[in-house]
């Protein structure tokens, strides 16, 4: 945050147009639009239906609802961030990355280093470190961790669901902190490799599942709703085939999410997923790729959803 401010204060000097920066900005803007319009808005239609009528669905369908919400919130937040960063880049400003492929994190500590980086950094600089950070006695560490996560929850809204969401994340994070394992995954997962190994895959899946459970509290109307949602998930109906009235929408969105995940995986080492995708290929292939994204923006436009952060 501080660095960002310093950067802006120092950037009063005359900026000149640079072709590569402008193209890079447009590319990130396009990817942000895809995340918001195609991924988030389509996922939202399904997540809203399932969360709003959760008592009518089986555990397996509720899991689907939670998964779609997980992608809705990511597409929404990171999509808008990409759009803002991309537009800034067009004007010659270089803003810091805000989401660094967080769903490929191997533990919760890594997740929080990769999710909404500007907000996390602000909390770290202006709350966690002044409180003493991870220094001091165990009691202090536990206290500071809970304060920062609960405040983060409270920042999202005056609802107990956000407080529980924050507290749950604190509970996820504490064991890593106390065992001093919170910084073991500071690199990018499976760096330089095409696929993760089995251990990494297990770690990613575990972190994703923990995050998904926490998002249920974030999305639920109240604690009771979240609790009954979870109870249904962990019931026998979890092992039934999911049923959803708008099957086509669910299938199409799932396919889009899979494609999205593949692209995000391939570009996980970059500032945004398509930053360097196909740069070594010839122009016609790159343009075809951009064209496909543009067509998908129009073709798969979901019902426009209000940006989640509008409510905060």
């Amino acid at each position, binding site marked *: 945050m501080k660095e960002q401010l310093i950067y802006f204060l120092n950037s009063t000097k005359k900026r000149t*147009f640079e*072709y590569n920066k*402008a*193209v890079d900005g*447009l590319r990130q803007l396009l990817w942000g639009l895809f995340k918001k319009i195609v991924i988030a808005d389509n996922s939202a239609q399904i997540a809203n239906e399932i969360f709003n009528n959760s008592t009518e669905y089986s555990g397996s369908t509720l899991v689907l609802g939670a998964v779609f919400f997980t992608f809705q919130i990511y597409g929404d937040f990171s999509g808008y961030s990409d759009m803002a960063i991309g537009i800034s880049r067009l004007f010659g400003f270089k803003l810091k990355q805000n989401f660094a492929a967080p769903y490929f994190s191997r533990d919760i500590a890594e997740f929080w280093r990769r999710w909404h980086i500007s907000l996390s950094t602000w909390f770290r600089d202006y709350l966690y470190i002044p409180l003493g950070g991870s220094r001091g006695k165990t009691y202090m560490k536990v206290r500071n961790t809970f304060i920062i996560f609960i405040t983060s929850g409270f920042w999202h809204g005056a609802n107990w669901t956000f407080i529980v969401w924050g507290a749950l994340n604190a509970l996820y994070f504490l064991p890593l902190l106390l065992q001093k394992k919170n910084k073991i995954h500071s690199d990018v997962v499976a760096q330089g490799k095409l696929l993760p190994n089995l251990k990494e895959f297990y770690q990613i899946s575990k972190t994703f599942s923990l995050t998904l459970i926490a998002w249920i509290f974030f999305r639920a109307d109240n604690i009771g709703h979240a609790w009954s949602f979870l109870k249904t998930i962990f019931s026998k109906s979890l092992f039934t085939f999911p049923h959803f009235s708008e099957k086509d929408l669910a299938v199409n969105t799932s396919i889009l999410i899979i494609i999205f995940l593949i692209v995000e995986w391939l570009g996980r080492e970059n500032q945004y997923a398509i930053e360097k995708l196909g740069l070594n290929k010839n122009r016609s292939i790159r*343009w075809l790729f*951009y*064209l496909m994204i*543009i*067509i998908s923006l*129009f073709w798969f*436009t979901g019902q426009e959803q209000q940006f989640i952060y509008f409510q905060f």
Partner: protein
Amino acid sequence: MIKFISQLTLFAIITFGTGELIVRSLKLTSDIPQRLVEPETGLQLYKPGQSGYFRNAKEKWHVNDYGMLGVADTSKKPLFSFIGDSYIENIMNPISCNQGFLLQSHFENYSFFEAGRSGVNFIEALEISNYLETIISPTYHLIYLGDGDFKESIISQGRYTDRVQVDLDQKLILKAKMKSPLAKRILYSSKLLYYLYLRFPLFIDKQNKGETINENIAKKPNFDISEISKLFNFCSSRYNLNKIILVFHPNANDKIIEQTTLSGFKNILLREHNNGWGLSKYDGHWSCYGHKEATKQVIPLIESIVKPPTGAHL
């Protein structure tokens, strides 16, 4: 900067071309017939000789030499004309579902002529009947109407420049004007732009909201009956009511029907039954089933005209 702009322009052109190709090849939009304003009457008609597909329809629509869609048989007498809005135009269904077509199969010795056009209001329908008198002189005009068509006819109740309206204070018929001709020309030529215009209604929404508001006003039961009454008085002096039969859509307002009777119009009210009128799943118009239901109720009316009870005259 020049390189950036030129590359961006080239990319935009390629994107536009690809989009146009996709929309056309996948038939993502309907073909909409182009209109013209007939200079003498101020009526909006279609340019003759056009044809195209309505989205999801298997059959092509064709504009006849009279600038209208649908059945246009003038070979026999009595000749019945059908005037109305998009319900009678029926561009979304095969022609075999049109009122004229369905009735033709029932009354082989008579001719039927359809003059439906989307957006036609009551006064415009009467003006069309006058226009048809000059070109085909039908024996009877059947005018299909809903409640809103009356209010939309009166200029003091809301101005619609693209439709014929009446100024009741000055007793003056106002001709229609082509609305946004340039925008129409662009949207007619580019299927992609038309598709985007329909799919992402940035400003169409405002229009629709306006129309919805107007429709709501029109549907209000406490409409200004004195204005409607003035409208009918004006019509009785200008049009030959003996040749006009008003066919009211189901659930039309009783007071309006009563007023038309008092002003000397013949009328019938179509009635809904069973599972409603089988409205199309794509829009709020009658489906083929709805047209057949309407026809069933119009047949006795036509029979009573062509086979009048003993002693009665046409």
